[in-house]
């Protein structure tokens, strides 16, 4: 009998604390598998963030540091510049990266930091209980937007990947989704490519992963997958926003 699936060595044996139907766990697995397959496991440093993934150090089988809310790219900068041979990644939610950490992510990209950013966009603040995020869709309800996000009042959701693709020194930006197995496989490819980009010293790479938060969205796990496909993908189109090949490298 041949082995077709094996738990990656990139994850510990710990069971995750995520809610049923939350795709944080899938994203973790993909990152772990990518590091494992590229042979980077013993050589990687992960920079966690403040959000539901704050406990990700329990799950990733690499050295992890939990960073202040929004500041992971700055911490990663300090680490990567000091030990450039290590693979350094951040793992950040949309509140963390697009709201409080907007300055840090823009400037990490702007400096062309040779790090990989895993950006989980679930259109809400999960950990603090369902407040509006910069990525919350128009009409989507949140505890701080009880009648749904009103664009005339809160603007339109930030498209971080499109925005960061404009930053000249950013090398590779792609948006993927986890709503079905086909897209999960594509997401994995993108993550592998992002880490490869870093290994080849091409500079800043970011994979935006459209993710579910059934708890914050008040939906069942299955309905949440459908909601992502139906509502998020049209606003946040999938695909490569900037390919490493397009970029004239600074380094």
């Amino acid at each position, binding site marked *: 009998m041949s082995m077709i699936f094996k738990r990656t060595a990139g994850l510990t044996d710990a069971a995750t604390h995520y809610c049923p139907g939350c795709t944080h766990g899938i994203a973790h697995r993909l990152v772990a598998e990518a590091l494992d397959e590229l042979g980077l496991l013993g050589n990687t440093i992960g920079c966690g963030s*403040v959000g539901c993934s*704050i406990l990700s150090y329990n799950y990733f089988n690499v050295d992890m540091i*939990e960073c*202040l*809310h*929004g500041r992971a790219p700055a911490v990663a900068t300090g680490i990567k510049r000091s030990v450039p041979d290590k693979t350094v990644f951040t793992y950040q939610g949309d*509140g963390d990266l697009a*709201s*409080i950490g*907007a300055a840090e992510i823009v400037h990490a990209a702007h400096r062309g930091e040779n790090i990989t950013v895993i950006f989980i966009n679930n259109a809400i*603040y999960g950990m*603090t*209980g369902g*407040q*509006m995020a*910069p990525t919350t869709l128009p009409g989507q309800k949140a*505890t*701080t*937007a*009880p009648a749904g996000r009103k664009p005339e009042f*809160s603007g339109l959701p930030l498209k971080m990947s499109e925005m960061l693709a404009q930053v000249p020194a950013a090398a590779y930006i792609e948006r993927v989704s986890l709503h079905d197995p086909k897209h999960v496989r594509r997401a994995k490819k993108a993550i592998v490519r992002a880490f490869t980009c870093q290994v080849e010293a091409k500079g800043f790479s970011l994979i935006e992963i459209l993710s579910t938060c059934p708890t914050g969205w008040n939906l069942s796990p299955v309905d949440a997958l459908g909601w992502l496909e139906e509502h998020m993908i049209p606003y946040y189109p999938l695909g490569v926003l900037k390919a490493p090949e397009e970029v004239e490298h600074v380094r």
Partner: protein
Amino acid sequence: MSKNLAFVQGNEACAMGAMYAGLDFYAGYPITPSTEIAETLAVQLPAAGKKFIQMEDEISSMCAIVGASLTGNKVMTATSGPGFSLMQEALGYAVMAEIPCVVVNVQRGGPSTGNPTHVSQGDVNQARWGTHGDHSIVALSASNHQDVFKMTVEAFNIAETYRTPVVLLFDEVVGHMREKLIVPEPGEIPLVARLRTSLKEGVNYHPYLPREDGRLPMSDFGDVHRYNVTGLYHDMWGFPTDKPELVQELLRHQINKIENNVHRMTFYKSYFLEDARTILISYGSSARAALSTVKQRRNRGESIGLLELNTIWPFPAELVRECTRNAELIAVVEMNVGQLTQAVKLAVGSQKQVHLINRVDGQMIADKDIKNILRILQGKGI
């Protein structure tokens, strides 16, 4: 049943108190254990035709309320330890520019991400000295929802009277606990309206020229008077200056307007102090446990009392000295390593020993914790 009876969280009581006080504008960023304040106001403010906005972080939240206050609004933000740290720079700006605002800190365990979101009272000194530079600050606290409501209203009153930021130092237990609140009738707690200049359009207005009573009438920014606001030391027009005499004068004015009015902003409660030989001093949720201990031991005939401070800064040193004059044993009950204890020590002087009864493990201090330490202090053993 009274129509004013409510069963709410402390955070809701705070939001309700702010609405009662005439809150016009709230800007904030979510953080447990304070978020229910924002979530309540996200419903109530728009319903009242007033403004609620979620900002991208606490730095901008604090800056937004500074801007909104200047244009004539009663303003507030709410956060917890990490966010309070991010607000410190702009809090200092509000001190310097003398901008009325209320900043709520529902304390949790720190430093950093710390012990979320367990109870702590570790920000007592951050409230006092968190921002850089010499300054005075007002910080109020409460141990029950009736007082959370009242102190929130008083915070707005003090902010408007003295043109100063006021910190509301609540804690996780008070913020999240549910209990009874009797919502005061309109007018039951007097409200201080903003003091606006009587100067007409076209007449020179000096935003930083104190009246005889020291108060600075405001003119809504962008309205009829043209003036400047700055975080630099400034003259009476609000334009920057580094003239030594003006710098010194402004610094002293900003400190004196608080320190010379301690008695006007001191709120406290005393329980069985008249004949007390053992005096506990406490505030916030730890005062609940202290009160419980005091009542139990009174029942057993011990001469013990409690001074609960609702005003923490400026520290009511005279009151504390007065209340503890006949005390044989003074102990401060707080959930930190002795932040207010230091202030009490300074107040009562070196003749009297001041003890600390605390818990710093993220757990609410209980009456039995206090009792156990008291027995040791009183030489009774455990």
